[in-house]
């Protein structure tokens, strides 16, 4: 057990260093944060052009936050977890570094644990950054991060399987697209009730934003005009 812990720690350190030094991976980790910044500007501009007052905007802040945080959860998990796990393993296979590790008496399970741990940590860090960009309330932070980890687990498992099945990074690119799309389904769930029903049974449907329409039926506040209508 000590040997396994030692190896996993060494591999996780290497994976984390590689994450920072790999420009592609690093940029993908920054993308969800970039999208959050973009959404803030877009929503602000849309509100201004719709003639919404600051008071009305403040009143709808909870709904805006729900949308932004839910979207960032989906994007972070879909992009970051897939990139680190699926591409990471595929790159190791393509460049034969995985073989070199296994010839050094490292087991596949140790590689898997290390990659998954780094992916979950990266998802948490990026989620936290997105949270503060979206200006969520601090009381929401803990459940948000916990939901991020819980929601990332199925994506990590699927990415592990696909990563081990890949022979190279090009194949990884092909396999990653459906994983990313499935992770982003809850965002499209906000477009309408039908889409919301489908989104509710997707891997992240349980962890991310619930449908605006189903919630607004239970509430009296109207939907802000600048948000997509069904």
């Amino acid at each position, binding site marked *: 057990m000590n040997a396994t812990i030692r190896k996993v720690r060494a591999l996780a350190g290497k994976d984390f260093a590689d994450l920072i030094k790999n420009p592609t991976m690093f940029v993908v980790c920054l993308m969800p944060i970039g999208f959050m910044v973009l959404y803030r500007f877009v929503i602000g501009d849309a509100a201004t052009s719709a003639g919404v007052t600051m008071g009305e905007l403040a009143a709808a802040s909870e709904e805006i936050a729900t949308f932004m945080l839910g979207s960032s959860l989906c994007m972070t998990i879909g992009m970051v977890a897939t990139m680190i796990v699926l591409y990471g393993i595929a790159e190791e*296979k393509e460049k034969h570094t995985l073989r070199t590790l296994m010839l050094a008496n490292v087991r*596949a399970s140790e590689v898997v644990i290390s990659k998954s741990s780094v992916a979950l940590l990266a998802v948490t860090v990026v989620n936290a950054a997105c949270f503060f960009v979206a200006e969520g309330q601090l009381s929401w932070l803990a459940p948000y991060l916990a939901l991020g980890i819980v929601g990332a687990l199925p994506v990590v498992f699927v990415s592990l399987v696909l990563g081990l099945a890949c022979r190279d990074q090009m194949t990884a690119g092909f396999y990653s697209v459906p994983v990313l799309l499935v992770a982003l389904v809850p965002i499209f769930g906000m477009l309408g009730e039908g889409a919301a029903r489908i989104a509710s049974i997707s891997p992240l449907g*349980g962890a*991310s934003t*619930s449908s605006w329409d189903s919630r607004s039926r239970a509430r009296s506040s109207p939907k802000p005009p600048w948000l997509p209508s069904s």
Partner: protein
Amino acid sequence: MGLAIEGALFTEAAVAPLIVTMAWIAAGALMFAALFRRLARDN
């Protein structure tokens, strides 16, 4: 997440979404366990 923002994360309304997520985690774990041995060979 919406339920968490509303402070309704640990209510009945949260059960269904969390069951969906747990089911996906279990399915993913099963798929991984089933295919891992076959796939964990380098090229």
